[in-house]
């Protein structure tokens, strides 16, 4: 039997994650794809805890823990330091949550991507400040309840389009991914590995305590996010050329919303409103994909 996912295990058990943690699966798959010649830097986020207390670590690669807003800048420094010491092989990876990426870390990330520094930035997005106890971030979707957006005043703003912001930097490669589609995630990491310059991968990482769901639903929900078009899987090359990784026939949004306690307060009308936003965004994405087709065809001919 041929495995579709690399067999090597660089992450070990004994980590400190919650049951059903998507962020933990994301790391496990990422290290399978990247291999042992990888250096990680992790700012404040769930993974600051998941990795385990001093002197333990659950990843078999060097890990530099860093301050909340510094992951991208530290990664730039690691790459430059390695280059000066003659190492051009090692993968440098900044691994951050949505708070450290969408909010407090966006300045350093924008700077590093504008400089096109050669590293992979992975944002595992659990859609709120889960490590501090579920506070709203700019990655929290419209309609969600968090501890700073209670039901009577649920999140009124749309999720920030982080990949769009990265594309606006003309980043060589950016893609979305999901823990429910590990082969797709690993394929994208392999492309990132081979692409010089800055790379940004945005992976939706389900969070049972934060989303108020049963741990055993973690993968199912991550899959439903893609199937309901809430979190489409796509790639952008050179900041301009869009490609859908899959274009599933849309399942009803309610399938994704209903099992999650963070959306429980929404009325039918509000779910309809959310559905409209999802369609709007998906249509815009399809337009970009249509526009990009000649570029991919020309690339294939080459």
């Amino acid at each position: 039997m041929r495995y579709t996912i690399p067999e090597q295990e660089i992450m070990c058990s004994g980590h400190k994650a919650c049951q059903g943690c998507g962020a933990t699966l994301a790391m496990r798959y990422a290290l399978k794809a990247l291999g042992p010649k990888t250096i990680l830097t992790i700012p404040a986020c769930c993974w600051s805890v998941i990795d385990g207390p001093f002197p333990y670590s659950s990843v078999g690669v060097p890990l530099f823990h860093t301050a909340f807003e510094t992951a991208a800048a530290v990664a730039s420094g690691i790459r430059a330091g390695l280059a000066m010491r003659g190492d051009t092989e090692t993968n440098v990876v900044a691994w951050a949550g949505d708070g450290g990426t969408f909010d407090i870390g966006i300045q350093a990330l924008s700077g590093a991507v504008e400089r096109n520094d050669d590293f992979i930035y992975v944002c595992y997005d659990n859609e709120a400040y889960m490590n501090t106890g579920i506070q709203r971030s700019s990655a929290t979707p419209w309609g969600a309840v968090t501890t700073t957006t209670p039901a009577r005043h649920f999140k009124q703003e749309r999720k920030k389009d982080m990949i769009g912001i990265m594309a606006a930097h003309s980043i060589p490669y950016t893609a979305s991914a999901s823990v429910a589609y590990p082969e797709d995630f690993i394929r994208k990491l392999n492309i990132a590995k081979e692409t010089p310059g800055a790379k940004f991968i945005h992976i939706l990482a389900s969070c049972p305590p934060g989303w108020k769901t049963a741990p055993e639903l973690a993968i199912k929900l991550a899959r439903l996010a893609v199937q309901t078009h809430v979190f489409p899987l796509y790639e952008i090359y050179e900041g301009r050329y869009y490609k859908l990784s899959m274009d599933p026939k849309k399942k009803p949004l309610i399938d994704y919303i209903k099992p999650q306690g963070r959306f429980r307060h929404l009325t039918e009308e509000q779910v309809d409103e959310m559905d409209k936003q999802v369609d709007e965004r998906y249509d815009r994405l399809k337009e970009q994909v249509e526009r990009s087709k000649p570029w991919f065809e020309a690339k294939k001919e080459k």
Partner: protein
Amino acid sequence: MQKVMMGNHALSWGAKLSRAEVIAAYPITPQTEVVELLSNMCADGDLNAEFIKVESEHSAMAASMGAAAAGARTFTATSSQGLALMHEVLHWATGARLPIVMGNINRAMAPPWTIWTEQTDSIAQRDTGWIQIYTSSIQEIMDSVIQAYKVAEQIYLPVMVVLDSFVLSHTNENCDIPDQNKVDAYLPRFENAYRLNTDKPAAFGGLTGPDWYYELRYKIERDIQKAIPLFTETGKEFGEMFGREYGLVETYKLDDADIVLVASASIASTARPVIDQMREEDHKVGLVRIRVFRPFPADLLRKLLGGRKKVLVIDRNISFGMSGAFYAETKAALYNEKKAPPMWGYIAGLGGRDVPMDVIKGMITQTIAEDHPAEDIIWIGVKR
């Protein structure tokens, strides 16, 4: 090689002679010439280094940490607001035990907007665990960068080389640029035993509870204290190789002095001819210039100041609600001494106000005239 250069360029030359491998910096007046010259050196191939043109000082220090953690010799420079923005990452660099060297040009903090010299920016960082060298000449700036790496890399702690805005940063003096081969012999290539190494994977800075955090802090204190003998040793070695010796402090006409003036940076340079004048007027006045402020050379100051008749300290900085920092710390160092002299603390030169010879002379004269200091902060010529 002799070359006339500004203080900022002396920092750049210090980094070049030390063979800095990664420079991450962001411009701020009055530091800009440091990074301009370094980027030219890199562009021309005179310096084999990666220059990361970061988008903020916060990222300058963060990128410096990444580079140093990867094992590279790393340099950056900033000033004032930039240093304040770095504050969080300064703590991180110390805790991560990274021997980064940074130039800081002392510029007063805003508001109001100002660009002139004052030490409050670097004094405000004294608890971050960074070693601090306060320089007083262009030559010393260049030499201090080289010595800073020599100290930093033995104890895995970062060092700040501090100079006065404009008075040193933009003043030109003749400099002796040491021979590169000799610098290489003094400061060999650095191999960081704890670098990020895929052959020896480890996590650095992970979550640490009360059962170990205390010990990690103890180790930082233990090692920063090692810098006390190290500055003397490496300064002596520097003197033997390059003809200019550096220590924790510099003394001038101190041996038989009754009245000792304690100062730092360029004010100490201005004070030397004042001491000469006072000596001509039969006042036994001497000078102690504190060069290394962190670690604070308390033992040495107890030896040098204990038993003197009077001590006065000039501070170009202020810790609001207390006093000048050099005054407070010198006084604290002598508190348990039986023969602790009374101590006067003068605040002068804030925001770049000139501190000319006659002002320093006035402070010494006042100290001689009074039996005891009237207050903790003595303001000189302030428009009340």
